[in-house]
């Protein structure tokens, strides 16, 4: 560049000339925010890994493909219900298809589980396989912090993936109704119910997914293990639980526990008019809850759910605390 084009160079003013100085290594004197910052960073990284954010199209294909599929199912259900409603009135809304929020979960639970089986291992397996876990644990982060942050990250993704199509379905049903506000007024209880059901489903699927992903450094093995955990117990306990004396073995089937939890949570929307778990909790204490259309008593079902939630979590936590680095 000539001096005419760069007057700063001619005048000898380095700033005007755009000169870059190497000021050498600078010590960091800013804030250090400790474990909370570390936990938040691992949490945010977990969400990015699960959804493939900041990565190529191939990495995004799997999670966003599943999310799209789930949303499309919600849209189709809303469209069919809306068409029936407009053609035949209230009776026509569920004539061709049960377009309830409860049925949506019942219909898509397997898709949600396959999503978890394929995506959850991304959060734990590569860190062990690549050896990156060492780099986390030599920072102000304990194995418990690391696992909790990853668990929370995948729970966030699972819950959002479960809720998003429900909101799409709700929006479709509201807009498909001749009097949208009337629909909302009559069905507002669906909202806390599908939120709670999504949270319950997400928490359990996340915990079980973390167990399978925490036991192996290979994503493929973790996915197969998770799908096996979902399918095999049901194949064994399904026929056995048809015998009244052995009905309780159904709690070993993850799909059955999730299904029964949804039945419990959405009980208020049952045709039989049984009271929902939310309504019972609001009107009485947990001790007064009665069976509500599920195969099991509420206490037994909630206990089974908690055992499913706590046991895998405890196993993977213990495993990570004992990992030899």
């Amino acid at each position: 560049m000539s001096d005419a084009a760069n007057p700063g160079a001619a005048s000898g003013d380095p700033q005007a000339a755009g000169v870059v100085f190497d000021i050498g290594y600078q010590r960091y004197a800013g804030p250090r925010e400790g474990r909370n910052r570390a936990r938040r960073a691992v949490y945010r990284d977990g969400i990015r890994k699960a959804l493939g954010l900041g990565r190529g199209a191939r990495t995004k294909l799997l999670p966003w493909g599943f999310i799209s599929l789930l949303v499309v199912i919600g849209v189709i259900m809303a469209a069919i219900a809306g068409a029936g409603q407009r053609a035949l009135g209230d009776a026509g809304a569920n004539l061709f298809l049960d377009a309830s929020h409860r049925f949506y979960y019942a219909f898509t639970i397997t898709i949600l589980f396959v999503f978890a089986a394929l995506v959850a291992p991304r959060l734990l397996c590569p860190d062990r396989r690549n050896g990156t876990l060492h780099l986390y644990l030599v920072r102000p982060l304990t194995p418990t912090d690391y696992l909790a942050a990853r668990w929370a990250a995948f729970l966030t993704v699972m819950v959002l993936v479960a809720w998003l199509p429900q909101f799409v379905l709700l929006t479709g049903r509201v807009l498909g109704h001749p009097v949208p506000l009337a629909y909302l007024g009559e069905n507002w209880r669906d909202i806390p119910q599908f939120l709670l059901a999504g949270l319950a489903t997400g928490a359990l699927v996340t915990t079980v997914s973390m167990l399978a992903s925490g036991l192996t450094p290979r994503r493929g093995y973790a996915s197969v293990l998770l799908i096996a955990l979902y399918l095999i117990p049901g194949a064994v306990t399904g026929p056995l639980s048809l015998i009244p004396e052995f009905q309780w073995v159904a709690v070993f089937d993850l799909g059955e526990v999730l299904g029964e939890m949804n039945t419990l949570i959405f009980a208020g929307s049952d045709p039989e008019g049984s009271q929902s778990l939310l309504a019972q909790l609001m009107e009485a204490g947990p001790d007064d809850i009665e069976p509500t259309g599920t195969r099991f008593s509420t206490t037994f079902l909630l206990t089974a759910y908690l055992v499913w939630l706590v046991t895998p979590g405890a196993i993977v936590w213990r495993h990570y605390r004992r990992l030899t680095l």
Partner: protein
Amino acid sequence: MTLVPGSGALMTLSKVTKRYGSTVALHEVDIAVTEGIMGLLGENGAGKSTMIKVLLGLIAPNAGAVRVLGQDVIRSPLVRSRLGYMPEHDCLPIEAPAAEFLCHMAEVSGLPTSRARMRAADTLRHVGLFEARHRPMGTYSTGMKQRVKLAQALVHDPDIVLLDEPAAGLDPAGRDEMLDLVRRTYREFGITVVFSSHLMSDVERTCDRITVLEGGQVARSGAVAEYTAETRTLFIELDGNRDRFVAALRDRGVAVGVGKGGVAVQGSDEDLCDLVRDALVEAEAPLRRMAPRRRELAELFTGVDGDHPEPGDADP
């Protein structure tokens, strides 16, 4: 920077023992890490990696006390925000670009996001990877990956960095670059370095102090300069007539060691220098270089006494 009270050291191990089942990895080890570059030297299985893990608080010792920057590193994981660690094995997520990975690692060390981003770019510039910072690390060469591993250990500006075999797997040029970076880490950046290696030449070229581990115990410890001090052996290099020169020296009663590189004679006083001068004249041997010989760290292990020339003592 917080020191371990009463010792002036940044890190101390006091009577530390670590067992894996019946195997004793460390046995009553006492070490104090002070400012500078400390070399941790030992053969494979000597206990170097175990010692680094104990210092990082990754494993608890069976007995003894570990203090890092004045704190118990097991009970206070927060102190690890002041430590950096470069493992020997692979540890990089190959699909991530280096800049993004370093930014994330800085955040995990407690830095706010905006500062972490700046530190990541700065650190990559210091290790010579600024231009390649947005490429996935899977596309990097072995040398570049080693530099990213060093960069992630430095990105949060620790007070102490522990490097486990940082030059492993590098070609001679890459090894020189990595050892230069390690030296700069202390001399320019002001970060104390604990440098583990099984290669004496690397430690000799890089470190100020050395601790030698053998079988989980400290065999020797001290300043590298002490071990490589000048000996009372005179080292002579010639351009020719070496055999006649050696014979002339022996005729004068001087003990001589002969190697490929030159000739070593015991002693360094003025009388000996006169005898060497006379032998050079008699043998008509052109002198290239004459200087007191320095010890080499290898002698720590071979037990050779640098003050007494051995037959191969004059090898370069």
